[in-house]
């Protein structure tokens, strides 16, 4: 009798602890399957698109990753919005679509990644086309593609907790600004100082957080 009571108690205790563990694992933390609108509402925000300031909009996407994922397919890439210069909004969107469809940023091998970035920027590698001989728009597209590579790296650092949301938002906002200048066909003399300032902030942020 005593034995069966002990056995039943153990089974009951095990069952209770299992139920508690299963409940806490889904509490508050958005999982991969939590992109449904009902669960996004729980996070307190359903969209980042209603924020006017670009830096705050980017910060929102870092803070509410489920919202950013849910909106990603429908929103236009920040740098492309309203572009009417050398590389207009449609051309810019087409560039991002190519880079995304060919999964250039997923390549682990940096040589394969570079080949993909060059090719999707418009350099005809297969027929022996060189960067130097490429049209100006293609060269500008390649710089935009490289800047997006840096953006990907920043997003990974933030996701790994190596830099803060504020630091990531500040860096990505600067990348977007530089990309817009490149797409608009602004002269090199205006773009280069912006890149140097971004480089300094990037290095200061990474070094600071490494210490």
């Amino acid at each position, binding site marked *: 009798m005593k034995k069966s009571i002990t056995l039943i108690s153990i089974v009951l205790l095990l069952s209770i602890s299992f139920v508690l563990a299963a409940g806490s694992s889904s509490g508050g933390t958005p999982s991969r399957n939590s992109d449904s609108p009902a669960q996004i509402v729980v996070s307190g925000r359903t969209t980042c698109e209603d924020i006017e300031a670009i830096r705050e909009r980017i910060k929102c996407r870092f803070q509410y990753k489920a919202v950013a994922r849910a909106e990603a397919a429908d929103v236009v890439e920040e740098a492309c919005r309203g572009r009417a210069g050398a590389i207009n909004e449609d051309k810019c969107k087409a560039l991002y679509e190519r880079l995304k469809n060919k999964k250039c940023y997923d390549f682990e091998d940096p040589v394969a990644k570079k080949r993909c970035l060059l090719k999707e920027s418009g350099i005809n590698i297969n027929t022996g086309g*060189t960067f*130097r001989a490429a049209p100006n728009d293609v*060269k500008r597209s390649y710089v935009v593609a490289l800047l997006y590579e840096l953006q990907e790296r920043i997003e990974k650092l933030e996701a790994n907790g190596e830099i803060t949301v504020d630091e990531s938002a500040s860096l990505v906002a600067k990348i977007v600004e530089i990309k817009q200048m490149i797409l608009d066909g602004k002269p090199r003399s205006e773009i280069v100082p912006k890149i140097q300032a971004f480089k300094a902030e990037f290095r200061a942020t990474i070094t600071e957080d490494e210490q």
Partner: protein
Amino acid sequence: MKLLIWIVIALVIIGGIAWFMSSNDIDLDGDASDSDVDTLSENGRVIDTDTAVFDEIDDAMGEIE
């Protein structure tokens, strides 16, 4: 006497290997200096680090008119 012969043979072999390896190094260095790899080409700079990506951006910007 036999030991001395073996030592001489060993020294000759080691010396030969050392000479062969050093001449190979010279050849490799020569190949590298002869090549004219455009850093912005697919076989040029490897964009595996943040610094390499920044350098690539700087070089690409230098080509923009």
